[in-house]
């Protein structure tokens, strides 16, 4: 074991989580793949970057994904809260564009707890809410070994019930599994911190 702490994955259910960084959508897709059941993806209609379902198919069956297209963030949050509270979907992904205040973050957290569903906020850097359970930063990493690699660096930057850490992970499309790999050229233990 190269790391001080094991990767806290899958994420805890009935909690809100946050992810930022350039690999946030991939992170969300992997969480969705692991969550099972129906996934509700809430995003504002004007955002130019769209999910591409043929690409999503490497992670999960796009038939499991419902997309809610909203006009503004208030609607996004309302839809997400409704879905979390209902609990029939296993994961609610929310793409937010302006910072969440404490009240909004807390309401989402309470809704997740009430419904038993997991919530995942895709946040721009530094726009997280304090009420979240974990906050991650995900970034793709160049992999000199494999051609069609999905090597990523996941770093946990806020954790209410655990320690921080950083891991290099790779999604295995065939096995539908997440592999933790040791980074090339780095000494073991350099990424871990805390306990």
């Amino acid at each position, binding site marked *: 074991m190269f790391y001080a702490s094991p990767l806290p994955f899958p994420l805890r259910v009935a909690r809100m989580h946050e992810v930022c960084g*350039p*690999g946030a*959508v*991939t992170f969300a*897709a992997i969480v969705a793949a692991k969550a099972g059941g*129906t996934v509700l993806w809430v995003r504002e*209609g004007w955002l*130019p*970057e*769209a*999910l*591409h*379902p*043929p*690409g*999503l*198919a*490497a*992670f999960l*069956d*796009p*038939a*499991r*994904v*419902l*997309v*809610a*297209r*909203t*006009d503004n963030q208030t*609607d996004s949050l*309302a*839809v997400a809260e*409704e*879905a979390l509270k*209902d609990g*029939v*979907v296993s994961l609610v992904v929310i793409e937010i564009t302006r910072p969440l205040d404490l009240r909004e973050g807390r309401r989402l957290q309470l809704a997740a707890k009430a419904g038993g569903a997991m919530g995942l906020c895709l946040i721009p850097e530094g726009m997280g809410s304090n009420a979240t359970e974990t906050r991650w930063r995900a*970034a*793709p*990493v*160049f*992999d*000199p070994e494999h*051609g*069609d*690699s*999905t090597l990523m*660096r996941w770093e946990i930057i806020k954790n209410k019930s655990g320690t921080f850490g950083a891991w290099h992970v790779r*999604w295995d499309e065939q096995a539908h599994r997440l592999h933790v790999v040791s980074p090339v050229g780095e000494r073991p233990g350099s990424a871990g911190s805390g306990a």
Partner: protein
Amino acid sequence: MWFPRLASDRVLRGQALDAPFVLTLRQGNSDRLHCLNARAEAAGLHRGMSLADARAFCPNLVSRPARPEHDARFLAALRRWAMRYCPWVGLEGADGLVLDVTGAAHLWGGEGTMLADMRARAARAGLTLRLGLGGTRGAAWARAHYGEGEEPLEALPVAALRLDEAICTPLQRLGLRTIGDLSNTARAPLVRRFGPEVLLRLDQALGAVPEAVSPRSDPPHYGVRQTFPEPIGLVADVMAATARLLEALCHKLRQHEAGARRLMLTLRRVDQGSQQVELRLAAAMRDPARILPLFERGVAEVDAGFGIDQIRLEAIVVERLPARQHGFAPARHGAEQLNDLITRIGTRIGLENVLRFLPADSHIPERSFIIASAAYSAAESGWSCPRPRPLRLFPPEPVAGTGSRPPMRFRWRRMALETARATGPERIAPEWWLNDENWRVGLRDYWRVDTRQGRRLWLFHTPQNPGWFVQGEFA
């Protein structure tokens, strides 16, 4: 019952007019008279005349365009009204009703008083009505259209047999002017010359061949309402009333094996203003316990003003929903719950904004999937893509680069990126049968570019119109 001026009477009921009045219908290139009032007929106009000619005859003519669909609706209303006389009422053409009053006339004190009652009511409603009573449907039609009262059928002209002009005119040339003449003629030569229709109509009028009156059954009306003795204003009261109406509505839906897709709750206030709450359901439903909570959000937004004294619930869009055996399929529960969630989300952002992806048959990345409303489509699997596709797709963003190999260094979104590995090309040709603005530049050679900075981008080169673009990002 024949309403010879149904269309113009309908319009004139709304506004009294003391002038020649016609309704015109556009036929081909000209407006032709469709329905005239009595004054216009007295002025010498007739149906089918062109409006320009009619204007020349009668300069003070008032005309309006005819609306046949409104007339049909009016006739349907009249049909419902006519059920006060007997339960067996059918439509006869576009402007008549046929009533089977057998066994019903005595309730009105005999046929004479019943006809008098009909005439009086029609006159009061401002409708021109011609009545014909006969032992058969054909006889009644003949008397209504060509007779004045109880004269014998034999005295009526042959046109009263519902024959068209092309048959009537030769018959008259042969000297067969009345029905009596026709019935006294040898039958075989008539059939040989005019076909079987003449004798069929004759027999139907005289009762030798039966002809049924087929009453049209009303389509079920999915609407219930309740009027309150005292106005109500509390949300809880309105919800309780809604629950009661919903119970009745769902009972009716269950009887007809239907499910509501769109419901409209109309709340009438004491000041005659009305407020409406529309509920669009993600799936056809008829379970009051499930529908009621979905109304909560809409009802809470209603402004009750001085109180609500009538509430009306109507299923506007209804779909077939056959009765289902339950108890053995617990898996359906999740699907129902999901539909409820879609409905609830739909009441906030619109049902058309809850979407799902469906696979599509195209190599063009933008068209390789369809985004469909989740409420009106079923989930479909079967995504197959022989080559890796990016997770995110965006409108092409140009980057600087020359040549047919991906640039070694380029700037994208204000980031300096360095190509570490390029996989490709994959050539995708535009679908020439579709005129797509974005594909005017011609062929595209797609490359997957792994940058040393980590980002894995989907670039394409357009050889026919040299340029490099970024269109997607891989996982």
